[in-house]
């Protein structure tokens, strides 16, 4: 019981949507997995700056085209949901149907400037779960995993698995990378607290000044990294998502205890 997932850790070419589409399509066609996941903004590249405005229509055209492959896929793209309102989105294809899932938390600090370009999703409308075979899953994008709520909400809505397509750049070069330790710690905590699988699919390679470090991984509901891609290079990584792991983790955790009053307090802060 469960599904096989493949992470495709690629170096997207900045602004070269057609090239990136070809790469996505060929990876999709050759994968043996039930579902294939790519990094954040994998179809367009991440450090787009004002190219966002010019590329959004093309990104949506190629997202539609990717959905025609008929494979379960999660990739990063742009979506204009109303005139002038653009999402940093995950394109989620299930049973040939394309859904755009927006990023909620848009980093705008340090090297990030997402609020300049994007509008955040609305949790009441945009938190959604999908199903492949017997597994329910949700998607949050990169910075969303640096907050407790999005993954917790998806888990409580029934997700057994949460994909986290990301574009995480290196800051200080160390071994292991500080940012790699942070990501594994974060997703380990999310997985443990919520009894879910988390799948981190990171961009790799240089875009402008930034260098994305890869290091994608599968985190089990019991907090174990079950498969891990190398850092600094392109890679494909297969992993098994089993519902037994979800079941076992929830027998011995208090995930089932949900005290709504905490959220009421949070709501009024």
């Amino acid at each position, binding site marked *: 019981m469960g599904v096989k997932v493949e992470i495709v850790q690629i170096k997207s070419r*900045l*602004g070269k949507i057609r090239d990136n589409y070809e790469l996505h399509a060929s990876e999709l066609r050759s994968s043996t997995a039930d579902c294939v996941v790519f990094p954040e903004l994998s179809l367009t590249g991440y*450090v787009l700056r*004002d*190219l966002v405005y010019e590329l959004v229509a093309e990104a949506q055209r190629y997202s539609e085209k990717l959905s025609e492959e008929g494979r379960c896929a999660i990739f990063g793209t742009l979506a204009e949901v109303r005139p002038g309102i653009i999402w940093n989105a995950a394109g989620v294809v299930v049973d040939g149907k394309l859904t755009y899932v927006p990023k909620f938390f848009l980093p705008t600090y340090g090297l990030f400037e997402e609020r300049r370009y994007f509008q955040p999703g609305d949790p009441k409308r945009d938190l959604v779960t999908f199903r492949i075979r017997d597994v329910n899953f949700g998607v949050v994008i990169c910075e969303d995993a640096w907050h407790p709520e999005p993954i917790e909400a998806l888990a409580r809505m029934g997700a057994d698995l949460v994909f986290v397509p990301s574009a995480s750049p290196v800051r200080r*070069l160390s071994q292991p990378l500080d940012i790699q330790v942070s990501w594994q710690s974060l997703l380990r905590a999310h997985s443990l607290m919520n009894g879910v699988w988390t799948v981190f699919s990171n961009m790799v390679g240089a875009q*402008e000044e930034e*260098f994305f470090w890869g290091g994608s991984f599968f985190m089990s509901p019991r907090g174990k990294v079950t498969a891990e891609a190398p850092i*600094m290079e392109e890679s494909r990584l297969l992993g098994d998502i089993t519902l037994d792991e979800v079941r076992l983790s929830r027998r011995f955790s208090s995930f089932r205890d949900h005290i709504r009053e905490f959220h009421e307090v949070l709501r009024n802060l």
Partner: protein
Amino acid sequence: MDLQQKLSHLFNLNYDIVAEYLVKRLREYIAESGKKGGIVGVSGGIDSAVVATLLSRATHNYFFLLLPSSSTPARDVQDALELTEMLGGRDKREVVEIDGIVREVGSRVKSEDPLVLGNAKARIRMTLLYAFAQKLDYLVIGTGDKSEILLGYFTKYGDGGVDVLPIGDLYKTQVRLLGRHLGVPEKIVTKPSSPALWEGQTAEGELGLSYEVADAILYSRFEEMKGPEEVAKELGVDISLVRRVDELVMRSQHKRLPPEIFRLSGRAINSDWRYPRAWA
């Protein structure tokens, strides 16, 4: 952290990973630029020795240009020749003496001011590097390090006029350690830094502080974002040194940015017209 602890923290890099990363990025940057290779001016100093080494590891298509003048110490020319030979670049280098061009510029400007002629030297070197680069269809690989770039210790459009700065995020003291790791000869690693734009010029003499102190201050002020008094106290240095570093950094901001464009239109370059470098 006192000065020594701060420096130990700065030096504590995995130089294997740093070298591998820089070589890989250089290789990719050249490939994505559409150019065939890279050229670097080799002076006999540590920065250009490190960049030459990285470049020779990134591509077979490299070229080393030695551009000495009468103010270049003979030892530097010798060291640059030895280094480029050690890197296997005997057939991929050229020595161009620049005194004739400098004299010509000096006579037209009617000045013997060492600063005027010194900066002209750096710009003449830039002109020659770009001419060779264009002939070879290569990029000009810069040798500036983070200390020099922050302190503004470079000539605008001279050694600052390059296509890419592979070691621009490493302080001078870190570059020395990377050099040692890469096998740069010890005499280059430990040589006092100097642009050699006039005889007897040394970077530390001109700046009025050692690179160890400068780097610790720069790191504390601009990466740790601590205030001047706190930095002086923590490092155990006189506040006047911290203020001097601050002043050098602030005064040279114009060197690190593209020239200001006076705005007239609805969308002005750099202001609200921001595209990635890798656009085409």
